[in-house]
């Protein structure tokens, strides 16, 4: 796989990836990730998750089960939350993709990131980026006011540490404020 970011901030890792071997069946695709355009050549087997982590080196999105069962890989595509592990990157040519890196920074956190921090809504943190991407999408989805409805719409994000109580509290705090 190779990447040729056309944005101004090409990192050394992105340049190194561009030199890697490209299979003969590789196809050109353009992704807009966190507002930046990336022109890539990818093996069609490349999932959006592997493209984000390995090609574009945005490693905030996590690989848990890699089979659509855990939600750790949740990102937004054209504003909707999806599982990047069950999606080929090639399908998303021209799509607008948002990852946890596009949501906020340590200095200017998204309100949901801030709420996860203040509510201690994680322990190991591995599922957290997926939880937050799901939670941010949930803000715009039809969801009733009760905790039970939040739990139902968050059921695709598994937390093995069991931080669920604080995750729901964090989400509800943001929902009450907006």
């Amino acid at each position, binding site marked *: 796989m190779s990447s040729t970011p056309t944005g101004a901030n090409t990192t050394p890792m992105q340049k190194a990836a561009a030199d890697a071997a490209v*299979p003969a*069946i590789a*196809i050109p695709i353009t992704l807009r990730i966190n507002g930046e355009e990336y022109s890539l050549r990818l*093996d*069609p*087997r490349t*999932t959006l998750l592997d493209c984000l982590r390995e090609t574009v080196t945005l490693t905030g999105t996590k690989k848990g089960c*890699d*089979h*659509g069962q855990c*939600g750790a890989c*949740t990102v937004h595509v054209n504003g*909707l*939350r*999806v*599982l990047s592990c*069950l*999606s*080929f990157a*090639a*399908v998303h040519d021209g799509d607008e993709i948002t990852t946890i890196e596009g949501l906020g920074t340590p200095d200017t956190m998204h309100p949901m990131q801030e709420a996860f921090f203040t509510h201690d809504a994680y322990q190991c943190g591995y599922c957290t980026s997926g939880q937050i991407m*799901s939670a941010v*999408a*949930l803000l715009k*989805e*039809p969801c009733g006011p009760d905790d039970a409805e939040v*739990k*139902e*719409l*968050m*059921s*695709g*994000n598994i937390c093995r540490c069991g931080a669920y109580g604080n995750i729901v509290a964090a989400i509800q705090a943001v929902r009450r404020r907006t």
Partner: protein
Amino acid sequence: MHSFEFTRPADQAAAISTAAQSKTAQQGADVRFLGGGTTLIDLMKLNVEAPSRVLDINRLPLDKIEDTPDRGLMIGATSRNSALAYHPKVQRDYSVLSQAILQGASAQIRNMATVAGNLLQRTRCVYFRDTAMACNKREPGTGCPAITGHNRTLAILGASEHCIATNPSDMCVAMAALEATIHVTGPKGSREIPFGDFYLLPGDTPHIETVLEPGDLITHVTLPPPIPGSKQVYLKLRDRASYEFALASAAVVLTIASGKITHARIALGGIGTRPWRSPDAEQVLTGSAESESNFRRAAEEALRGAKPQSENGFKIELAKRCLTHALRTAVS
């Protein structure tokens, strides 16, 4: 995952003519249409599916959800499960469908999965997903280890000595009760397939799950005009409260006048090798009073002939209580 060629057909005709080159549209198909990918990509990662060509049909203009001239509903093949579940007309007139979809999978998967992909999600079990094990569906003639193995969640209706896998769809149970029609275009033209004729019992060919032939493309599904005043319920019973397949589910569409049931459509999920409509239960209910004893009688009819495996005998009574409770909820 095996290597494949990825293309995006320019139009429906190109998609169909390429797919028609596959020897089969069933297990082992050489050419696969790609919708949301939530089943196909999972199975390709497991090497259970290994198409040499994948046709991305997501950008064909097949994602509309709109009224039909007879005031029914046309649901485009690539419309997303979440778009269908939250569609105002579906929530108002076909609420059993909205309820079923929203009790299936997770929010992320519902945003990805297409309606046609849900129709074609594989009837499957853990042995089908594991290439280290025998499986008549994956490799015909190798045997069915589920029959002597883990079968707690598997089928009690429609199974054969060759396959006892359950159809896992919730959406399909509601569509069976709503008497949907599946519209297919293939190399020989277009045809309409009543929902009840679309899925095949496993018999001795469990690798053939539907009537689809090479090149057949589901273009849309239609629902008949809504039944005024009908009461609709989808009830799903499962091991976890959310994001879990049904152990038993029931879709119920009832119309009641002067204390009598004038129209009944009943389908069950989680217990059959295909979405399981029950004309026998419908017959018991139609013309009957809305009473607990009639509900139980309908449930007995629906599960008549159910055959338990070594671990799932409990599903027979569970399914009966599921249907009885769904009927009770519908009339309350």
